[in-house]
């Protein structure tokens, strides 16, 4: 089985993000970058499937040259080779990412395309679904369990109000939720090995992708801060505030 999987570079999910004073973006000085946590789940799932039944795992990232660092993390987790779609311009939307990934899919012709359900920077949760529609493939989003049997994939999906199970025919698009697995930490030997794994560079021109955006983020601001409250000393005092001040009980 051949699996394509995303390896998106994102700002450290635990970092406190601040907006630039002129509202044109976020302050990147001193920020660390990591692999998108949901992509880690997708990569782990891909590597586990490969360990079980063989095949190839190809990791893909889109971004400037720094994005290759995170692609190497995917290779250290067990992906066999990487594809780096070079995009120096940081202006992106989910649709452009999806059109790029659809082209990569058509070149690679995998049996399964695994993506993170969302990236923790843009938080859009669109790319997997867009790719599926552009390629007319079945999708199983927010996966928390995967089982392959022949050319069918059974997926448990985390929904509001319960767990749904669907079956999709391969090739298919699956987006990973956090409970799908616990991503492995790359071992040092695997990190070293990853440095020698092949990474193919592609450009939008080579892929024939139009860089036009469908939505554009034109301003960034800090959200209105919630007013800091007070500390109470006792349950009695808390009750008094809840009953008489907030009228919440």
């Amino acid at each position, binding site marked *: 089985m051949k699996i394509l999987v995303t390896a998106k570079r994102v700002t450290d999910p635990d970092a*406190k*993000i*601040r907006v630039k004073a002129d509202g044109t973006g*976020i302050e990147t000085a001193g920020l660390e970058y990591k692999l998108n946590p*949901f992509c880690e789940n997708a990569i782990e799932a891909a590597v586990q499937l490969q360990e079980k039944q063989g095949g190839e795992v190809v990791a893909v990232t889109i971004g400037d040259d720094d994005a290759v660092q995170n692609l190497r993390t995917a290779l250290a987790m067990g992906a066999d080779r990487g594809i780096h779609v070079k995009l120096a311009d940081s202006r992106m*939307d*989910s*649709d452009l990412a*999806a059109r790029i990934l659809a082209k990569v899919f058509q070149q690679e012709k995998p049996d399964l395309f695994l993506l993170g*359900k*969302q990236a*923790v920077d843009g*938080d*859009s949760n*669109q*790319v997997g*679904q*867009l790719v*599926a*529609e*552009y390629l007319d493939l*079945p*999708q199983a*989003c*927010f996966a928390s369990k995967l089982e392959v049997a022949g050319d069918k994939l059974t997926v448990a999906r*985390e*929904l*509001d*109000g*319960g767990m*749904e*199970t*669907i*079956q*999709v*025919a391969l090739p*298919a698009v699956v987006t990973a939720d*956090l*409970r799908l697995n616990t991503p492995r930490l790359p071992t040092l030997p695997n990190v070293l090995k990853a440095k020698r794994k092949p990474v193919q560079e592609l450009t939008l021109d080579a892929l024939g992708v139009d860089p036009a*955006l*469908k*939505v*554009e*983020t*034109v301003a*960034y*601001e800090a*959200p209105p801060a*919630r007013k*800091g*409250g*007070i*500390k109470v000393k006792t*349950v009695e005092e808390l*009750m008094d*505030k*809840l009953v008489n001040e*907030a009228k*919440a*009980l």
Partner: protein
Amino acid sequence: MKNILVIAETFQGKIRKTSLPAVTFAAQLAGKVGGEFSIALFGSGVAGLAGELTGFGAKNVYVVDAPGFANYLGGPWAKAVAALAQQVGATAVAAVSDTFSRDLLPRVAARLGAGMVSETTAIVGDGAGVKFQRPMWAGNVLGTVVVKTPFAVFGVRGTDFDPPKATGGASAVQNASIAFADDGKATYVKFEPTVSARPDLAEAAVVISGGRGLKDKAGFALLDPLADMLKAAIGATRAVVDAGICPNDLQVGQTGRVVAPQLYIAVGLSGAIQHVAGMKNSKVIVAINKDEEAPIFSVADYGLVGDAFKLLPELTDAIRKHKGL
């Protein structure tokens, strides 16, 4: 985007109330761009529910009722929603962001060549200059977004728009003929609802959430008596869900459920960015945590520093007395 089609959602045979703030979004947008909106209801055996949607000022309520729509599948549903949008001349589609619409809407957008705004929290400006706001980076950044395509698709954050108001007007109910186009590529197998006597997280007036400070299932069970008394929903942090202490659909946060109850009681949780993103619009926030530096105190209206295992039973008793129970 002058002709907006709102997708109402059903869950277990009923209109999902939390899907209705998209109607308020559509009414606001229609007002700002000088347009109108309609509501669409897809499903099997749902025609009888259409009457619940006719009082909100929509021009039409379209019903697509066919056996094929008994269960949701992304591909065929996206085809159907896009087909209805085209049939009725819509130029925008909107639905409240939940796991149903997050799965569906991007596919609809791709079919219609539309730009999509996820988790829209506000409409800014009007006319041709209308823009949209949405949270990014777990709510640390508010982005202002323009849609550059003639057709637009909106995921709407339900906690940022009120439930729709009755306008007194009666929308015309129209049965739309849209076939369920099954491509055989995906099959529904089963749905296992989370069994709980408690209200749904997104609908509850009071939410009590626990974090890792409660340690284990037994610790987490300390929330039950208080939740029973306040008819509250119970929420959790990702750490608690990952530890298998509660089911995953109780996870409140950036990548889980977004809630905005009248009262949110956070117990033994530190207030990680990802969690706060899912609850900071709550009207009143109470935090109980033994670490006085915990970030949750910076968003809490009332913070109580101390051991949750001691304070939670005390608070439960105090509320019981207050309620005369």
